[in-house]
């Protein structure tokens, strides 16, 4: 698989042409919703002419189609925004472009990032890079697949409850959900504001670190961004890593558990002590997540009303009809399900019992993590209970689909950085990943650790 350094110092136009060729070659995976060919070639020519330079000069990349970016519509894989052309670009995209990187296309996702398989896309599911009968994972499925299939050396995604980590694991690439607030959310279609993070996929930890370092930092347009911390955190010194007990039960696929233990062995080789630890609040994390996240997204999706932009139902007679039909036609079933759950938990009389209660439990989860990080540098656990499942297998059972998020949502709720690192394939040849969760702002150290394991 290609690395960023493979593209540096070469003709940007050639890099972009090759990426576009490769993108067309893998069209059957339905990983990309659009190619930004014209703009990409124009920018590549400017890089070659020396007008644009930087640490990623001439390196092609792909963004998940919930990033506002020029050159193609920003659809969020929905009918609602099918024809929405962004008048501005996300801060993350702007920062990468400022370093000379060239966006060549926009990747498929579950519409509005609601889902864990990329099956909820209004434009059809993305197929798994290793097995076309299986899901790519999600919601950033397209970005994971284009990275795994060597279209580009890195791709951007968003992770609200596992949407980068799980598809990274399903397709055998590195993925990071950074500390909440590390990267500006400005210009990214919001899902759940308090857990949305901007991250990326790459083929190795070092490249991941470079891309993240460029994107990270305070942005005056996003009040929740943190001042830049990427390169100034103390290194891991406890030399102890906790293996989360709750994730190593029979509910988790045996091969997945074995791969996690294999990874633990490698960490031991690097001089880390591995101890089993308890993360007891984890059992409540799905319940918290599926209250807080739908609540926030029901609010964030209220703006899609057919009045100013986006899908507008034809021949409506009343305002209620305009809203009802535009939203009914523009949203997918999973969007509507979550909007309804969110509206319910926020409704008068239920707010305290659901939303506030979930927030209290969230604080307990955060406290439990905090305690663990006084003793351990990082926590090790699988990313998902199974490798990639069959397309359609879980589609009719939302609860089963939600349960697959059990190991990725705790870090999201706590705002902690978490990396998904590939750890080989199952007997069937399906990629499996492990997850390392670190303390607040320890993102770079997690990637360093993964990089060291890569070198073993």
């Amino acid at each position, binding site marked *: 698989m290609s690395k960023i350094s493979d593209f540096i110092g070469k003709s940007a136009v050639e890099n972009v042409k090759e990426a576009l060729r490769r993108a067309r070659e893998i069209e059957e995976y339905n990983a990309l919703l659009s190619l930004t060919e014209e703009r990409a070639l124009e920018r590549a020519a400017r890089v070659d002419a020396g007008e644009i330079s930087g640490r990623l000069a001439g390196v092609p990349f792909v963004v998940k189609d919930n990033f506002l970016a020029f050159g193609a519509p920003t659809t969020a894989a929905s009918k609602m925004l099918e024809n929405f052309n962004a008048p501005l670009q*996300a801060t993350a995209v702007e920062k990468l472009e400022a370093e000379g990187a060239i966006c060549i296309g926009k990747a498929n996702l579950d519409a509005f990032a609601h889902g864990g398989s990329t099956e909820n896309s209004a434009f059809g599911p993305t197929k798994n890079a290793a097995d076309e009968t299986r899901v790519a994972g999600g919601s950033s499925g397209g970005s994971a697949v284009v990275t795994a299939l060597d279209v580009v050396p890195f791709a951007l995604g968003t992770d609200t409850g596992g949407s980068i980590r799980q598809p990274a694991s399903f397709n055998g690439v590195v993925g990071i959900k950074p500390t909440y607030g590390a990267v500006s959310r*400005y210009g990214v279609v919001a899902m759940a504001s308090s857990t949305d993070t901007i991250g990326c996929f790459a083929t190795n930890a070092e490249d991941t670190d470079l891309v993240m370092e460029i994107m990270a930092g305070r942005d005056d347009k996003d009040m929740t961004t943190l001042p830049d911390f990427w390169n100034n955190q103390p290194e891991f010194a406890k030399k102890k890593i906790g293996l989360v007990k709750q994730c190593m039960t029979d509910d988790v696929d045996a091969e997945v558990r074995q791969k996690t233990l294999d990874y633990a062995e490698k960490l031991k080789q690097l001089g880390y002590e591995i101890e089993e630890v308890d993360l007891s609040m984890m059992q409540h994390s799905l319940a918290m997540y599926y209250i807080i996240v739908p609540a*926030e997204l029901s609010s964030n999706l209220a703006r899609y*009303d057919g009045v100013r932009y986006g899908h507008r139902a034809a021949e409506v007679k009343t305002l209620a009809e305009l809203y009802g039909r535009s939203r009914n036609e523009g949203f997918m079933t999973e969007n509507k399900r979550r909007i309804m759950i969110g509206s319910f938990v926020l409704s008068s009389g239920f707010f305290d019992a659901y*939303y506030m209660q979930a927030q209290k439990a969230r604080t307990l989860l955060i406290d439990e993590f905090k305690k663990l990080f006084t003793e351990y540098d990082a926590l090790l656990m699988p990313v998902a209970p199974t490798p990639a499942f069959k397309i359609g297998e879980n589609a009719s059972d939302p609860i089963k689909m939600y349960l697959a998020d059990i190991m990725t949502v705790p870090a999201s709720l706590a705002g902690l950085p978490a990396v998904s690192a590939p750890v080989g394939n199952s007997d069937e040849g399906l990629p499996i990943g492990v997850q390392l969760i670190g303390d607040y702002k320890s993102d770079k150290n997690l990637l360093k650790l993964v990089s060291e394991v890569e070198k073993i």
Partner: protein
Amino acid sequence: MSVYDDYEMTIGIECHVQLATKTKLFSPADNDARDAEPNSKTHQIDFGLPGMLPVLNKHAVELAVRAGKALNSPIAHVSRFDRKHYFYPDLPKGYQTSQMYNPIILAGYVDAPLEDGSLKRVRIDHAHMEEDAGKLTHHDGYSLVDLNRAGTPLIEIVSEPDMHSAEEAKAYVSELHKLMVYAGVTYGNLYHGNMRFDVNISVAKKGATELGKRAEIKNLNSFRSVERAAEYEFKRQVDILERGEEVVQETRGWNDDKQITISQRSKEDAQDYRYMPDPDIPPVVLTDEVIAEIQSKVPMLPGEYREKWSALNLDKSVINSLLSNQDYAQITLEVQEKSGEASAKRVAHWFASALTASDESDAQTDNESIRVAVDDLIELAEMTEKSEVSSTNAKELFNELLAGAKNPRKLAEEKNLLQVSDESAIAAIVDEVLNDPASAASIADIKAGKDKAIGYLVGQVMKKSKGQANPSLAQKLIREKL
């Protein structure tokens, strides 16, 4: 005794105050949309585009902190923003960003002066920050949306139901307006909707322990309409009760042409706003030091002016006129502090009569700032005091100063408005007049005891002095010489 005397009304008022910021509450869009093309003063953030995030306007927070001082309210050390959800085309995000659970301004009070000179204390429950919505105009078969006003920063001041008459309600909103303008919180332009009032009114038999069902009269934009709406609503509700019916809890509008309230929607249509803490905006944290620093910039407020002026024995109408213009009030006080009460009183009256043209009760303080030098005013006041100018001429000179002229003494000289109070100069004129044969008849009359006849002689002195002689001095000299 009328049936209305058996009832008492209870009034609580919510007031929306548009803050005098350059930009909107969460976006860099221009906050001054007066006379602007529809949708020309809007930003992607106010427009609710995907991926847009709010950036809290620090100046708006500062103005809220100032408002807190004017409301005698403590400021919350931690306040938060919440989302209030409802669907309407004037609300681009599908929610209004407001403060439901932790408002920035806590409980306080306003002391509103009543006609009889007493103060009515109205308690403030709290005041919170929020964004304004856009505007819809309805046409035949379609409606148009203008988002120029969307995102304009507001504070909503919520009073306790402490008022019991239309007069008290009017006094409260009028004082609130003065307070907000004086504290620099708002431009206070009522015509442009800078302050809007929602008035909650219920009536009950006097002495009843339970309040009646209330109606909310929305969107009043003048002190007079608040007063009239309260008067109208009191009668309407009493009439309903007297007929043995029940008042419906509802929202009503005010028809200014017909001077009546009209039903808009009843409580059954009440919406569930699904309030939720806004996860895009971190809590607003203010330390005591920061609050004190901001509030130290709040200039003197109307109540304190009234106190300082109490020694001047000014008419209430003069005080109200003065207070309707912060510049005039400020200058009057400066004169008082530098030169004493007599001068201040004169200046106060000059300002008050300069303001009589404007209707003070619905003052449109579009504060064209007045640049009269305080020292010039003091000089003019002292010249008047010493009878160097007549009071009529002083007024003329005052108007010149207001219009931008400087140096009243020089001005008076140029215009020949100075009174001659030099005894020898006047004595010479007096002699001249007394020796004039035309004066003989009057002199004879005076000597015969017809004292009124002196008026003719004084008039002649004034005439010969071209109006510059001090008339009382002239009279004194005539008497002495006769």
